[in-house]
């Protein structure tokens, strides 16, 4: 047996090129006759575009063309769309405002592009972009929901009165109201989920090439889902017909959601390539990335949770207002609705849950999915409520949770989801033991002697991954199906290529997907090649986001492997003159069980392709494909415990211990899964303590570089104690739940619960910067002084 199958800590196959500097990212690609694009962007958050004078720019050295939005729409390039329709309470559709890749009449956020310069060099393009004279009529702007919903607020889109996009609800309102009215105790909180910038380290980039002789386009781009990009570019943006457009997402330096969407720049590069008959490259600077990459989160909520006299939750009611920015990005509408409110039952058995959500336009960059997408907002809300309620009720926060856990599966929540498996108490126990909760009081006392305030906080998160059954998401408004495809090609020499519609941008698919094949056919992973990210090679795929590549992508591979295995057994049974049921595959051989009759794995491949001796009627070759449509969401869950020490003099918080117990179902490669959890937790700590995308009231981005947007660094985060307590997911052939987002979903409430425990003040918002923690401590001192 190889030791590279499911559950093995196999070192990554892809690492060699990355550690030697041979990774191939989009900006590394140079095409013949390549020109560079620089965008002319609005410095105003909201303005009418009165005129654009490109004459000076056009006359500059090296300038090939200056193109604007009127030319773009004149060439029938379509508006950018949101792919998930949401219906309001009153039955009306959402108010999607028009979004042209280059603004024509009006700009709606700082960074909104009005023109593009194509020039021989990057420097020439930038210089000419500065020389494009745009006359703006500046309009009043709004940068947050509070201002957008005000009477008389600036109107951002004509078809969205009051800037409202939709007013949506889920759950049982009347029953929830009644339950809360009769509750023995209620906990009410206002909770803000801070706006974030995803910040994959590789900035977005695109290289578009139009081949006039074939009327064919090629786009290299930093995408998590190249096939979706091709579909949308072709079907909605009218850039090129699908069969005349090849989209390649080569090595991609992190995504975290920000690289799901098809942005204006990719559309413009393709179109400009056709206009100028040159390859056109654009690579974002980090400053541009802050202005134009879709942001995440930005919710403001009020929530009330009710308990009976025995501390059982009887009802939970939430109102959320979400900022979707200046335009509706591709999946923006699904984030504060179906990816959020459907998780508001948490790990708990709650008979009555009701949530309504109003979304608004603001003069800020569009907001869409960022690692976790809706689920971090839900878990933060639920888990802060639970911790706060436990404090108010005077009970242990872990025990209040335990008492309310869902214990029987399947469990239907009042908010759509049917949880299929889990052992929440098992995760709680594992985390408590690893975190040495019993020893906390002594540690707190010891810290106090050093002048430090020590606190501990829990988070028992649940999320929904493996997105998702196509019919189900279709009924909820999704414009696409969310299946995945795979193709398994066994070569005549027995080596294997796996073509997958999933896309790896750090997740290690080249290794884990190969492990799946290794497990099935007992072959070394070095004989297995994973092919992804190229629409000319892989027929179709829905890409990688929402922790779906294991539960959905690998399920598709597994299904295709079933077909290959069946054919291999048929061939071997025929050649070895045995019954198919007696054929086993192991040790690089295909054998007849209990005999010494065997053929080498490569001999089966060769037989399939020489086709000299195949069973009657069998087609030659050994290649099978499959589409897998999930049967349900999957439900990763876990318990995180964070322990902090706060320096009361400065408000500086140090995370002294972070303990995770996750339930991801089947784990293919524990090393990679742990890495995903580490990275997710760091992003969650970033949200909880460091990161904040801040606009001023006029819509200027104040956190527009790493000088002001605080990225987690090595000395901001601890070593993490990560463990697993898993239940098998019954919904897919491998029993997998997904692990990519859990860390970012589960960690923020644990951190904030720990800090508020340490400082004795629950009035604290994310990010809990030293400045905010110190201010919260001043409130405590002031209150004590007043007593």
């Amino acid at each position, binding site marked *: 047996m190889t030791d590279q199958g499911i559950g093995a800590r196999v070192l990554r196959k892809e690492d060699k090129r990355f550690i030697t500097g041979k990774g191939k990212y989009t900006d590394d690609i140079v095409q013949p006759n390549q020109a560079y694009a620089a965008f002319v962007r609005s410095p105003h958050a909201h303005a009418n575009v009165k005129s654009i004078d490109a004459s000076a720019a056009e006359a500059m050295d090296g300038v090939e063309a200056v193109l604007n939005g009127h030319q773009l729409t004149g060439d029938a390039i379509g508006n950018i769309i949101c792919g998930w329709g949401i219906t309001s309470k009153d039955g009306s559709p959402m108010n999607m405002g028009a979004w042209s890749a280059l603004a024509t009449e009006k700009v709606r956020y700082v960074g909104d592009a009005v023109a593009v310069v194509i020039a021989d060099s990057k*420097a020439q393009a*930038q*210089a000419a972009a*500065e020389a494009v004279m745009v006359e703006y009529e500046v309009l009043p702007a709004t940068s947050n929901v509070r201002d957008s919903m005000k009477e008389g607020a600036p109107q951002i889109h004509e078809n969205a009165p009051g800037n409202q996009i939709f007013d949506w609800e889920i759950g049982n309102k009347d029953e929830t109201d009644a339950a809360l009215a009769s509750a023995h105790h209620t906990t009410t909180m206002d909770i803000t989920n801070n706006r974030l910038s995803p910040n994959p380290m590789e900035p977005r980039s695109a290289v578009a090439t139009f081949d006039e002789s074939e009327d064919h386009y090629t786009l290299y781009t930093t995408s998590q889902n190249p096939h979706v990009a091709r579909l949308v570019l072709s079907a909605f943006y009218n850039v090129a017909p699908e069969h005349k457009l090849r989209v390649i997402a080569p090595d991609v330096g992190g995504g975290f959601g920000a690289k799901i969407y098809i942005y204006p720049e990719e559309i413009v590069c393709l179109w400009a390539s056709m206009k100028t008959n040159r390859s056109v490259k654009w690579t974002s600077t980090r*400053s541009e990335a802050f202005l134009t990459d879709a942001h995440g989160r930005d919710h403001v909520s009020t929530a009330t949770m009710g308990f009976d006299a025995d501390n059982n939750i009887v009802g939970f009611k939430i109102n959320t207002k979400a900022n979707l920015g200046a335009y509706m990005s591709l999946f923006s509408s699904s984030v504060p609705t179906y990816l959020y409110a459907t998780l508001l039952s948490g790990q708990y058995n709650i008979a009555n849950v009701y949530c309504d959500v109003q979304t608004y336009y603001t003069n800020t960059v569009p907001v869409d999915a960022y690692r976790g997408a809706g689920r971090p907002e839900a878990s933060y809300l639920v888990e802060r409520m639970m911790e706060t309620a436990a404090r108010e009720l005077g009970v242990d926060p872990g025990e209040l949770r335990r008492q309310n856990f869902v214990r029987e599966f399947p469990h239907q929540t009042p908010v759509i989801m049917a949880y299929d498996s889990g052992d929440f108490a098992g995760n709680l126990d594992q985390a408590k033991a690893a975190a040495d909760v019993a020893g906390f009081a002594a540690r707190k006392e010891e810290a106090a002697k050093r002048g430090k305030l020590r606190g501990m906080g829990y988070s028992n998160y649940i999320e929904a991954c493996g997105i998702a059954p196509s019919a189900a998401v279709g009924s909820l408004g999704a414009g696409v199906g969310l299946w995945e495809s795979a193709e398994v090609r066994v070569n005549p020499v027995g080596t294997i290529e796996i073509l997958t519609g999933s896309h790896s941008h750090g997740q290690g698919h080249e290794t884990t997907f190969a492990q799946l094949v290794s497990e099935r056919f007992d072959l070394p992973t070095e004989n297995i090649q994973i092919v992804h990210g190229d629409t000319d090679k892989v027929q179709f795929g829905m890409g990688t986001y929402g922790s779906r590549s294991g539960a959905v992508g690998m399920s598709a591979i597994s299904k295709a492997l079933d077909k290959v295995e069946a054919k291999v057994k048929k061939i071997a049974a025929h050649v070895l003159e045995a019954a198919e049921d007696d054929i086993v595959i192991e040790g690089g051989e295909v054998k007849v069980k209990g005999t010494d009759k065997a053929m080498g794995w490569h001999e089966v491949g060769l037989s399939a392709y020489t086709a000299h001796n195949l069973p009657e009627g069998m087609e030659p070759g050994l290649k099978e494909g499959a589409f897998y449509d999930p049967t349900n969401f999957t439900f990763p869950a876990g318990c995180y415990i964070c322990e902090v020490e706060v320096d009361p*003099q*400065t*408000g500086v918080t140090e995370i002294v211990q972070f303990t995770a117990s996750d339930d991801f179902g089947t784990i293919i490669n524990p090393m990679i899964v742990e890495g995903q959890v580490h990275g997710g937790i760091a992003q969650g700590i970033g949200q909880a303590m*460091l990161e*904040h995308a*801040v606009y001023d009231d006029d819509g200027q981005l*104040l*956190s527009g570089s*790493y*000088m*002001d*947007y*605080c*990225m987690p660094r090595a000395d*901001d985060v601890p070593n993490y104690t990560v463990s697993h307590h898993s239940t098998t997911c019954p919904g897919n052939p491998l029993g997998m739940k997904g692990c990519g987002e859990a860390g970012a979903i589960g960690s923020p409430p644990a951190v904030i619960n720990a800090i508020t425990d340490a400082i004795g003040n629950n009035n604290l918002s994310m990010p809990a*910067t*030293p*400045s905010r923690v*110190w*201010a919260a401590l001043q409130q405590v001192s002031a209150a004590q002084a007043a007593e």
Partner: protein
Amino acid sequence: MYDTTYYRASSVSDATSKLAGTEDGKFLGGGQTLIPTMKQRLAAPSDLVDVSGIDALKNISVEGDTVTIGAACTHAQVAGSSEVAEAIPALASLANGIGDPAVRARGTIGGSIANNDPAADYPAGCLGLGATIVTDAREIPADEFFVGMFETALDEGEMVTAVKFPKATKAGYAKFPNPASRYAMVGVLAAQTANGVRVAVTGAGNDGVFRHAALEEALGANWSADATQGVSTDEGDMLADIHGSAEYRAHLVGVMAGRAVDNS
């Protein structure tokens, strides 16, 4: 970045005469502030006269009670210098906390003080220790050198060649870094010098580095962290931004002053 013309100077006189002949030239040290500023298209010098290769500016020497650091000495060089560590440990420690290792390998003391970034560390070091800034034309006491945010007493075309630090009886530096940029949000250098106690604050003030009279008085009377308690800092003189209020910065000045004393 806008077009520019690069020139590598071989000596101080070569550098100053070269710069004098340019339209809108600038001296280039390690470039750790100027290059990013140029990349953001916020500066467009016609010429860059690189002084970082002038050997005469790369020396550190200790004579009597004076430590002289050449303008082209990098932060890494100062941080790693055993002479500096022995003579004024607070200065070595300050240099070791500037930026990150790669920035310290390029950034120079001359470049840092000539720029007088309100969040830079060296201005606090110079002012707190009572240094003298040596230029190609004259010597300027630190008290007169740092005029305001990004402003110094340097004349057009005048070049910093060295900084002379008098040894302090005791000195300590404590920095509260801005969580994002890691520049000083509040940096305090407190020193017992031949001319009494000096306390300089960088990062926090709305007009650049400044001396803190109340802290100097308190520490002059009692050199201990406790003495900084209750010494207030005028919030009106403090910066305020998304990272912290003026009130918070004013509070941190006191805390960092105490820690500077503890570090001395």
